[in-house]
Structures are given as structure tokens and as C-alpha cells.
């Protein structure tokens, strides 16, 4: 059951000219969140109508007090419009309505299955908590992480500290391999023994997700993708967030990604 919290901004750390990490005090949401779930945030005062709607953001980190209790969450935000601008400019002491946790989380694998995590840009967001959960179960994880340039690769030490193997790509070649992140994924899958189990987790731009899902299918690997649709409500009320999927009946159906997702089976989505 999601709750709505008037969350205090604890801290707001800019990571670059576009990215920031916003820490919010929200113990109850933090306590209930599972990796892959999201929150709906109203970046301005509730009574103000512009921006009007809340915006969906993955739970990035679970924040903990000195005694280990969950005190809040952070979100990794990329500035692309009016609400993310407000999040970028937010100051400690402000409050923001934060509704969550919402949506269906990732299904977490057990050893000996390996986790291959594929992240594009701000698509890194759901994977900080996922990597922690996988680590706790002793799953070996690899993060394929692509960004525009070296300066847009964040939290590498965080993942290293969780013993996550990093495979980096940048479009301009300023760090890791030059090009898109699906290329090294494909190579690794092609050289991997088909009997060694791998679960692929992906989040990022639509085209990257489609390419990842198709690559996974090519090698017969399961793939959980976290999709991003424009969401009006996050609770199943508006039917704005649909993804075309193959149903059990074999037919094509529009599925609400806020309820059935955001984590969906990559091989059931009808990619454009």
C-alpha cells in the first residue's frame, strides 16, 4: 500500500550540469521499497498547478540512520524539463510530496545465476538498490553502463564497493569502450556457455531497452526491463502509461506499466 509523504529535502548533490542526487526524508517509503520500484514526486508546492502532475522517479538509494534503520530515499534525477529543473534547484528544508513505493519490482535471482545489469544514462537509477540486494544473496553482478561521456558515468565506486564488475561505454569514447552499451553485452553473451544461467536487467532509453531485449532473446536469455512511460498517476487510474505486450491469449494488449511494471518481461513487449 503506497503512502504519501510530505518529505523534507535532506540534501541535494549536483553530479553534473544536468544530474543531481536528491535525498528525501521518508522512512515509511524507504522501509517498504523493493529494487525497481518508483515514487511519484510533486516538485512544487501541492497547491500550485504548474507543474501540475507528479513525476515518476526510481528509488535510487535507501538512506539509513546511524543504527541502520531506513530513514529515507534518494533519487538520481536528470534535468530534462520543468519538474527535473525544480528538483535540480531544490534546497534542504523544502518539502515535496512523495508517493510510493509503486510498481512491480525486479525479480531477484539466486546463485549460481549471474546478474547482468544494463544501464543507459539515468537508467542507472534502479540498480543501486538492486545491486545491494543481489550482493546480499551472493549473486555475482556485472554492470554494463553506457553514457554520453566519461563525466556522465556516476557512482562507479558505489558499484565497485559491491563487487560489481563494470563494463563501461561512452558515445564519445572518453571512458570505457566507444559506442553503445549493447555491443559488449552481445559479445559477452555470445561467448558465454548457454548452460551457465544469466538474468539480464535493463533500464535506459527505449531504443537501448529494445536492443537489449532483442539481444537477450537472440541468446535465449531472460531479460527484465524497466520501462519509462509518461505517467499521469502511477496507480493504474489513467491508462496513460501503457506498453503494447503479447498477452496470454497470444493477442496484443496495452498493459499499464505503472501496475504491471515498470519491470516487464523484455520478450513479451511488442517493441516498435
Amino acid at each position: 500500500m503506497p503512502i504519501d509523504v510530505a518529505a523534507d529535502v535532506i540534501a541535494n548533490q549536483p553530479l553534473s550540469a544536468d544530474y543531481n542526487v536528491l535525498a528525501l526524508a521518508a522512512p515509511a517509503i524507504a522501509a517498504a521499497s523493493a529494487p525497481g520500484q518508483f515514487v511519484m514526486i510533486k516538485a512544487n508546492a501541492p497547491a500550485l498547478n504548474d507543474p501540475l502532475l507528479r513525476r515518476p522517479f526510481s528509488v535510487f538509494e535507501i538512506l539509513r540512520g546511524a543504527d541502520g534503520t531506513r530513514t529515507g530515499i534518494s533519487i538520481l534525477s536528470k534535468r530534462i524539463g520543468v519538474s527535473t529543473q525544480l528538483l535540480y534547484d531544490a534546497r534542504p528544508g523544502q518539502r515535496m510530496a512523495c508517493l510510493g513505493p509503486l510498481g512491480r519490482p525486479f525479480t531477484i535471482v539466486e546463485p549460481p545465476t549471474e546478474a547482468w545489469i544494463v544501464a543507459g544514462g539515468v537508467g542507472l537509477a534502479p540498480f543501486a538498490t538492486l545491486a545491494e540486494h543481489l550482493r546480499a544473496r551472493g549473486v555475482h553482478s556485472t554492470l554494463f553502463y553506457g553514457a554520453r561521456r566519461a563525466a556522465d558515468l556516476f557512482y562507479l565506486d558505489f558499484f565497485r564497493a559491491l563487487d560489481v564488475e563494470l563494463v563501461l561505454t561512452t558515445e564519445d569514447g572518453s571512458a570505457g569502450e566507444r559506442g553503445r552499451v549493447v555491443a559488449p553485452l552481445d559479445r559477452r553473451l555470445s561467448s558465454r556457455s548457454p548452460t551457465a544461467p544469466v538474468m539480464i536487467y535493463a533500464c535506459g532509453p527505449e531504443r537501448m531497452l529494445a536492443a537489449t531485449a532483442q539481444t537477450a532473446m537472440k541468446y535465449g536469455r531472460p531479460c527484465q526491463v524497466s520501462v519509462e512511460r509518461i505517467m499521469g498517476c502511477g496507480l493504474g487510474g489513467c491508462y496513460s502509461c501503457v506498453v503494447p505486450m503479447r498477452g496470454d491469449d497470444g493477442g496484443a494488449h496495452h498493459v499499464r506499466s505503472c501496475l504491471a511494471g515498470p519491470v516487464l518481461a523484455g520478450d513479451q513487449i511488442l517493441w516498435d
Partner: protein
Amino acid sequence: MDLSVRIGSLTLKNPLLAASGCFGYGVEYADVVDLSSLGGVVSKGLFLAEREGHPAPRIVETPAGMLNAIGLQGIGVRRFVDEKLPELRARKATVVVNVCGTTLDEYVEVSRILSDADGVDAIELNISCPNIKEGGIQFGCSLAGTFDVVSAVRNVTRLPVIPKLTPNVTDVASFARAAEDGGADAVSLVNTFLAMVIDVETRRPKISNIVGGLSGPAIRPIAVRMVYECRQTVKIPIIGMGGIADARDALEFMIAGATAVQVGTANFVDPFIWSKLLAGMREYMERHNIARIADLVGTIDTGHTVAERSGV
């Protein structure tokens, strides 16, 4: 303090209904809202058959509003009766079903099925969806069409029949009159305003259907005016909506002439809005010494505004 209001033969425990298309089938919200605490839940629009609706993107935010073209995705009336109605009934929700049709016969048939089902309290006739060609707007934009659909459905059901009017007309009050003449128990208004947003970078519409329906606080002053106009014209109750986001807004519609109100877009912004709306109404009634909320309906005071002034 009496919050109840009457819509035809139906008594609502309070004047607050969840608007069609903005509350799923109601069951989606059972976790966050006590459905029995609402005046009523209006279902998503239902045809006879299932529909998948338009491809995404289906919505885009606009200044103080949003544009949608969902395309009436829905599970069809039979699955609604089988799969959703039992839970709504179990949760003691007052259920209004939003009925769509591509033909007059479909409206009649869907209404007949609902009349036979257990747990439907009223029928809202959606003759005003701007987002699909065959979505009833051909009825809702013609006085004769409005009359015909209403009277045809009137003939097959004892449930209250509430046509929902489009604001995309010159004289909405004449449509309220046509509905009244056709035997409607009430009218609801407004549905969304036909509108569009273009992405200037790609020069393409921002939603897949090109045009969509505008809702939210942006349209509220127009909707209030339309309720006020209809109140001068018909005797049947009016269910008002369009951009209601707090108790003040709900009261504004009631003072303009609405017996009950629906809340759509604001429920997206705050799914916990319902208890706040009720609390705000109660606080207002206390402060203004109003024992029955029904007494507030249509009490707008226009007499003094201009006359009182010395003027020029």
C-alpha cells in the same frame, strides 16, 4: 451536518464522485481510498466489446492542465460486470457506469446489461469523448442525437440516466435541455476540451492521436460558467466537473448550480484528495452555518455585484 444530495432516485452520501477515466474501475484505488466514503465512483468508459485504445504517448501536461487521448481502452461491459462489479459491491461503493457506444443500439445494449447487473447505481452516458471518432461525440454535438440517445436508454432502464455533455459547443445549455427533454435524471458536465500540443522540435503532435481532451484546473473557469448557464436552463440536477482540485473548487461548482461534483485530474495529483475534500466541505459548512450541503446548490449571488456600485 448533512452532506447527502439527490440525483434522481439516487441519494449520494456526499456530493463527491470520482470522474470517469480518472479512477480506473475504482478497484485500483481500493488500497488508498475507502470507496464507500465517496459519493460515488464513475467507471472508465465502457463499450460492449473490449478496446485497446490509442498507442502511447497518450497524455501530455499543459499549463495547469493535461491533454489526454487514451482512446477509451476498456474491458467491455461484460467483463466489467463479471470482474469488477463484485469487488465494488463488496466494498460498498456507489457505482456509476460510464457508458459508451458507436451506435445508438450499442448505448442501449450496454445500458440494458448494466440494468440487469447487481450493484450498478446509475448510468452516465458518455456522448462527449473528444478522442475517438466513433465515441459518441456525433450524438453529443447534435441536439437531436442527444435527445435520441437519452430517450432510447431511458426506455430500457430504471437506473438514473445521466448524459455527460461536451463543452465543445456554442451553447451547452441547449444540450442540457435536450437531455432533460429526453428524460435524463441529471446531466454531467464538462467532458474535456478538444485541444492539441505540438512538439516544435519534431513538428509532431505530442500525443499519438494528434488531438486530445484538455482537463485540469486550466479549464475550471469555463466549466463553472457552463454549469451556471445550465442551471439557468434546466430543472434536473447537474453534476459539475472540470479542474476541481480542492474543497473551495467543489463548493464553487455547487454555488454555480451543481448538485454533485466529480474530480478527475486532481486525483492523479493526489490520490488521497478525497478525505481532504470532505474535511474542507465540512469546515466550510460549519463556518457558514450550513446544515445541508444541498442548500448551497445554485446560491450564487449575482444581484449586487454590478448594481451595488456607484459605477461610472
